[in-house]
Protein backbone atom coordinates (compact mmCIF):
# COMPACT_ATOMS: atom_id res chain seq x y z
CA UNK A 1 0.00 0.00 0.00
CA UNK A 2 1.38 3.30 -1.07
CA UNK A 3 1.67 6.29 1.24
CA UNK A 4 -0.48 8.33 -1.11
CA UNK A 5 -3.28 5.87 -0.59
CA UNK A 6 -2.96 6.14 3.17
CA UNK A 7 -3.04 9.90 2.88
CA UNK A 8 -6.13 9.94 0.73
CA UNK A 9 -7.88 7.31 2.81
CA UNK A 10 -7.15 9.33 5.92
CA UNK A 11 -8.47 12.46 4.24
CA UNK A 12 -11.67 10.72 3.19
CA UNK A 13 -12.32 8.96 6.45
CA UNK A 14 -11.41 12.06 8.43
CA UNK A 15 -13.76 14.17 6.35
CA UNK A 16 -16.52 11.65 6.80
CA UNK A 17 -15.98 11.40 10.54
CA UNK A 18 -15.91 15.16 10.90
CA UNK A 19 -19.10 15.43 8.86
CA UNK A 20 -20.87 13.08 11.20
CA UNK A 21 -19.44 14.43 14.44
CA UNK A 22 -19.19 18.19 14.04
CA UNK A 23 -21.91 20.11 15.82
CA UNK A 24 -22.11 23.05 13.49
CA UNK A 25 -24.00 21.94 10.43
CA UNK A 26 -22.09 24.15 8.03
CA UNK A 27 -18.84 22.75 9.34
CA UNK A 28 -20.25 19.31 8.83
CA UNK A 29 -21.15 20.18 5.28
CA UNK A 30 -17.68 21.52 4.60
CA UNK A 31 -16.20 18.39 6.13
CA UNK A 32 -18.35 16.36 3.76
CA UNK A 33 -16.78 18.32 0.96
CA UNK A 34 -13.39 17.22 2.16
CA UNK A 35 -14.59 13.63 2.13
CA UNK A 36 -15.93 14.08 -1.38
CA UNK A 37 -12.65 15.56 -2.52
CA UNK A 38 -10.75 12.71 -0.94
CA UNK A 39 -12.95 10.24 -2.75
CA UNK A 40 -12.37 12.07 -6.02
CA UNK A 41 -8.64 11.77 -5.47
CA UNK A 42 -9.06 8.08 -4.67
CA UNK A 43 -10.83 7.71 -8.02
CA UNK A 44 -7.87 9.38 -9.70
CA UNK A 45 -5.61 6.98 -7.86
CA UNK A 46 -7.72 4.22 -9.40
CA UNK A 47 -7.14 5.69 -12.88
CA UNK A 48 -10.77 6.71 -13.14
CA UNK A 49 -10.08 10.25 -14.26
CA UNK A 50 -13.51 10.94 -15.66
CA UNK A 51 -15.35 9.67 -12.62
CA UNK A 52 -13.05 11.67 -10.37
CA UNK A 53 -13.66 14.96 -12.12
CA UNK A 54 -17.36 14.21 -12.39
CA UNK A 55 -17.33 13.55 -8.66
CA UNK A 56 -15.78 16.96 -7.98
CA UNK A 57 -18.10 18.70 -10.41
CA UNK A 58 -21.26 17.08 -9.11
CA UNK A 59 -20.56 16.66 -5.42
CA UNK A 60 -18.49 19.70 -4.59
CA UNK A 61 -19.96 21.95 -7.25
CA UNK A 62 -23.58 21.00 -6.81
CA UNK A 63 -24.49 18.68 -3.95
CA UNK A 64 -22.36 20.43 -1.34
CA UNK A 65 -23.71 23.80 -2.38
CA UNK A 66 -27.24 22.42 -2.26
CA UNK A 67 -26.69 21.09 1.22
CA UNK A 68 -25.27 24.39 2.37
CA UNK A 69 -28.21 26.23 0.89
CA UNK A 70 -30.64 23.90 2.58
CA UNK A 71 -28.83 24.43 5.88
CA UNK A 72 -29.08 28.18 5.58
CA UNK A 73 -32.71 28.06 4.46
CA UNK A 74 -33.65 25.96 7.47
CA UNK A 75 -31.61 28.02 9.89
CA UNK A 76 -29.54 24.95 10.54
CA UNK A 77 -26.38 26.97 11.17
CA UNK A 78 -27.67 28.02 14.59
CA UNK A 79 -26.59 25.51 17.15
CA UNK A 80 -29.53 23.68 18.71
CA UNK A 81 -30.12 23.99 22.40
CA UNK A 82 -30.23 20.32 23.16
CA UNK A 83 -27.90 17.63 21.85
CA UNK A 84 -27.32 17.23 18.15
CA UNK A 85 -27.48 13.48 18.52
CA UNK A 86 -30.74 11.67 18.74
CA UNK A 87 -31.84 10.10 21.98
CA UNK A 88 -31.06 6.60 20.87
CA UNK A 89 -27.69 7.35 19.40
CA UNK A 90 -26.05 4.42 21.15
CA UNK A 91 -28.21 1.92 19.31
CA UNK A 92 -27.40 3.57 15.99
CA UNK A 93 -23.73 3.48 16.74
CA UNK A 94 -23.86 -0.18 17.61
CA UNK A 95 -25.68 -1.00 14.43
CA UNK A 96 -23.25 1.02 12.32
CA UNK A 97 -20.38 -0.75 13.98
CA UNK A 98 -22.02 -4.07 13.29
CA UNK A 99 -22.42 -3.16 9.66
CA UNK A 100 -18.77 -2.25 9.42
CA UNK A 101 -17.83 -5.44 11.15
CA UNK A 102 -19.80 -7.53 8.73
CA UNK A 103 -18.44 -5.69 5.72
CA UNK A 104 -14.88 -5.89 6.94
CA UNK A 105 -15.33 -9.54 7.71
CA UNK A 106 -16.59 -10.12 4.19
CA UNK A 107 -13.66 -8.26 2.69
CA UNK A 108 -11.06 -9.99 4.78
CA UNK A 109 -12.60 -13.39 4.25
CA UNK A 110 -12.45 -12.95 0.48
CA UNK A 111 -8.90 -11.62 0.52
CA UNK A 112 -7.60 -14.59 -1.38
CA UNK A 113 -10.35 -14.58 -3.95
CA UNK A 114 -10.02 -10.97 -5.08
CA UNK A 115 -7.61 -10.16 -7.89
CA UNK A 116 -4.40 -8.47 -6.86
CA UNK A 117 -2.75 -7.59 -10.11
CA UNK A 118 -3.29 -4.10 -11.33
CA UNK A 119 -2.71 -3.47 -15.02
CA UNK A 120 -3.50 0.10 -15.94
CA UNK A 121 -6.57 -0.09 -18.16
CA UNK A 122 -6.21 1.80 -21.44
CA UNK A 123 -9.48 3.63 -21.14
CA UNK A 124 -9.73 7.13 -22.55
CA UNK A 125 -12.46 9.67 -22.15
CA UNK A 126 -13.24 8.97 -25.77
CA UNK A 127 -14.14 5.39 -24.88
CA UNK A 128 -16.35 6.58 -22.07
CA UNK A 129 -18.13 8.94 -24.40
CA UNK A 130 -18.64 6.20 -26.95
CA UNK A 131 -19.93 3.86 -24.28
CA UNK A 132 -22.31 6.52 -22.98
CA UNK A 133 -23.94 7.07 -26.34
CA UNK A 134 -23.54 3.49 -27.46
CA UNK A 135 -23.99 0.64 -25.08
CA UNK A 136 -25.30 2.77 -22.24
CA UNK A 137 -27.45 5.14 -24.23
CA UNK A 138 -30.69 3.96 -22.68
CA UNK A 139 -29.52 4.44 -19.08
CA UNK A 140 -28.17 7.81 -20.16
CA UNK A 141 -31.54 8.85 -21.51
CA UNK A 142 -33.28 7.57 -18.42
CA UNK A 143 -30.88 9.44 -16.16
CA UNK A 144 -31.57 12.57 -18.19
CA UNK A 145 -35.26 12.04 -17.71
CA UNK A 146 -34.76 11.34 -14.03
CA UNK A 147 -32.74 14.50 -13.52
CA UNK A 148 -35.37 16.57 -15.29
CA UNK A 149 -38.12 15.00 -13.23
CA UNK A 150 -36.10 15.46 -10.05
CA UNK A 151 -35.43 19.11 -10.85
CA UNK A 152 -39.08 19.78 -11.51
CA UNK A 153 -40.08 17.77 -8.46
CA UNK A 154 -37.62 19.53 -6.18
CA UNK A 155 -38.78 22.92 -7.39
CA UNK A 156 -42.41 22.02 -6.83
CA UNK A 157 -41.79 20.48 -3.42
CA UNK A 158 -39.74 23.40 -2.18
CA UNK A 159 -41.84 26.11 -3.80
CA UNK A 160 -43.87 28.38 -1.59
CA UNK A 161 -47.34 27.05 -1.13
CA UNK A 162 -49.70 29.70 -2.34
CA UNK A 163 -52.12 30.94 0.24
CA UNK A 164 -55.51 29.69 -0.78
CA UNK A 165 -58.36 32.11 -0.20
CA UNK A 166 -60.28 30.85 2.76
CA UNK A 167 -63.86 30.02 1.91
Amino acid at each position, binding site marked *: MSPIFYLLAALTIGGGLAAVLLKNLVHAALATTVAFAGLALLYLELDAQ*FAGFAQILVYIGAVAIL*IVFAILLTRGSDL*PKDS*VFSRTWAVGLVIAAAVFAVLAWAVLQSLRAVPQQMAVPAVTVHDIGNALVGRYVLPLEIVGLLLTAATVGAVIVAMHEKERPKP
Partner: protein
Amino acid sequence: MTTPLAGYLLVAALLFAIGLAGALVRRNAILVLIGIELMLNAANLNLIAFWRFGPHPELLTGMMFAIFSIAVAAAEAAVGLGLVISIYRHTNSTDLDKMNRMKG
Protein backbone atom coordinates in the same frame (compact mmCIF):
# COMPACT_ATOMS: atom_id res chain seq x y z
CA MET B 1 4.13 -0.45 -4.53
CA THR B 2 0.50 -0.68 -5.38
CA THR B 3 -2.52 -0.76 -3.20
CA PRO B 4 -4.51 -3.98 -3.22
CA LEU B 5 -8.20 -4.06 -3.80
CA ALA B 6 -8.90 -4.93 -0.20
CA GLY B 7 -7.53 -1.59 0.92
CA TYR B 8 -10.07 0.29 -1.13
CA LEU B 9 -12.82 -2.02 -0.02
CA LEU B 10 -11.98 -1.48 3.60
CA VAL B 11 -11.94 2.28 3.18
CA ALA B 12 -15.29 2.06 1.44
CA ALA B 13 -16.70 -0.13 4.19
CA LEU B 14 -15.49 2.29 6.84
CA LEU B 15 -16.94 5.24 4.99
CA PHE B 16 -20.20 3.38 4.59
CA ALA B 17 -20.34 2.66 8.29
CA ILE B 18 -19.57 6.28 9.11
CA GLY B 19 -22.32 7.43 6.77
CA LEU B 20 -24.72 4.96 8.31
CA ALA B 21 -23.79 6.10 11.77
CA GLY B 22 -24.38 9.69 10.70
CA ALA B 23 -27.76 8.78 9.34
CA LEU B 24 -28.66 6.87 12.47
CA VAL B 25 -27.44 9.05 15.29
CA ARG B 26 -27.93 12.64 14.12
CA ARG B 27 -31.12 14.49 14.69
CA ASN B 28 -30.97 16.91 11.84
CA ALA B 29 -32.60 15.73 8.63
CA ILE B 30 -29.96 17.41 6.51
CA LEU B 31 -27.22 15.55 8.27
CA VAL B 32 -29.05 12.32 7.73
CA LEU B 33 -28.99 13.19 4.04
CA ILE B 34 -25.28 13.89 4.27
CA GLY B 35 -24.84 10.46 5.83
CA ILE B 36 -26.75 8.87 3.01
CA GLU B 37 -24.61 10.69 0.48
CA LEU B 38 -21.53 9.33 2.20
CA MET B 39 -22.95 5.83 1.96
CA LEU B 40 -23.63 6.29 -1.72
CA ASN B 41 -20.11 7.52 -2.23
CA ALA B 42 -18.73 4.55 -0.42
CA ALA B 43 -20.66 2.31 -2.77
CA ASN B 44 -19.25 4.28 -5.72
CA LEU B 45 -15.74 3.74 -4.44
CA ASN B 46 -16.46 0.03 -4.34
CA LEU B 47 -17.78 0.09 -7.88
CA ILE B 48 -14.77 1.89 -9.23
CA ALA B 49 -12.35 -0.25 -7.31
CA PHE B 50 -13.94 -3.41 -8.66
CA TRP B 51 -13.90 -1.92 -12.13
CA ARG B 52 -10.21 -1.18 -11.82
CA PHE B 53 -9.30 -4.60 -10.51
CA GLY B 54 -11.87 -6.55 -12.47
CA PRO B 55 -10.99 -8.78 -15.40
CA HIS B 56 -12.52 -6.47 -18.05
CA PRO B 57 -11.86 -2.82 -17.26
CA GLU B 58 -12.22 -1.96 -20.96
CA LEU B 59 -15.93 -2.75 -20.73
CA LEU B 60 -16.32 0.22 -18.37
CA THR B 61 -19.19 -1.46 -16.53
CA GLY B 62 -18.27 -0.45 -13.00
CA MET B 63 -17.19 3.03 -14.07
CA MET B 64 -20.46 3.62 -15.85
CA PHE B 65 -22.34 2.31 -12.85
CA ALA B 66 -20.49 4.83 -10.70
CA ILE B 67 -21.12 7.69 -13.10
CA PHE B 68 -24.81 6.95 -13.28
CA SER B 69 -24.90 6.54 -9.55
CA ILE B 70 -23.35 10.01 -9.19
CA ALA B 71 -26.05 11.45 -11.41
CA VAL B 72 -28.81 9.66 -9.53
CA ALA B 73 -27.33 10.77 -6.22
CA ALA B 74 -27.45 14.36 -7.41
CA ALA B 75 -31.13 13.97 -8.21
CA GLU B 76 -31.69 12.29 -4.88
CA ALA B 77 -29.98 15.13 -3.03
CA ALA B 78 -32.05 17.74 -4.86
CA VAL B 79 -35.31 16.04 -4.06
CA GLY B 80 -34.32 15.16 -0.53
CA LEU B 81 -33.26 18.68 0.32
CA GLY B 82 -36.38 20.06 -1.33
CA LEU B 83 -38.40 17.81 0.95
CA VAL B 84 -36.45 18.92 3.99
CA ILE B 85 -37.06 22.56 3.15
CA SER B 86 -40.72 21.92 2.55
CA ILE B 87 -41.02 20.07 5.88
CA TYR B 88 -39.14 22.83 7.62
CA ARG B 89 -41.58 25.33 6.27
CA HIS B 90 -44.40 23.24 7.61
CA THR B 91 -43.15 22.31 11.06
CA ASN B 92 -40.42 24.91 11.58
CA SER B 93 -38.00 22.17 12.45
CA THR B 94 -35.61 19.78 10.82
CA ASP B 95 -35.37 17.60 13.86
CA LEU B 96 -36.18 14.05 12.91
CA ASP B 97 -37.14 13.15 16.46
CA LYS B 98 -40.03 15.56 16.22
CA MET B 99 -41.02 14.40 12.81
CA ASN B 100 -43.12 11.39 13.55
CA ARG B 101 -46.56 12.49 12.71
CA MET B 102 -48.50 11.65 9.58
CA LYS B 103 -50.59 14.76 10.10
CA GLY B 104 -49.47 17.79 8.14
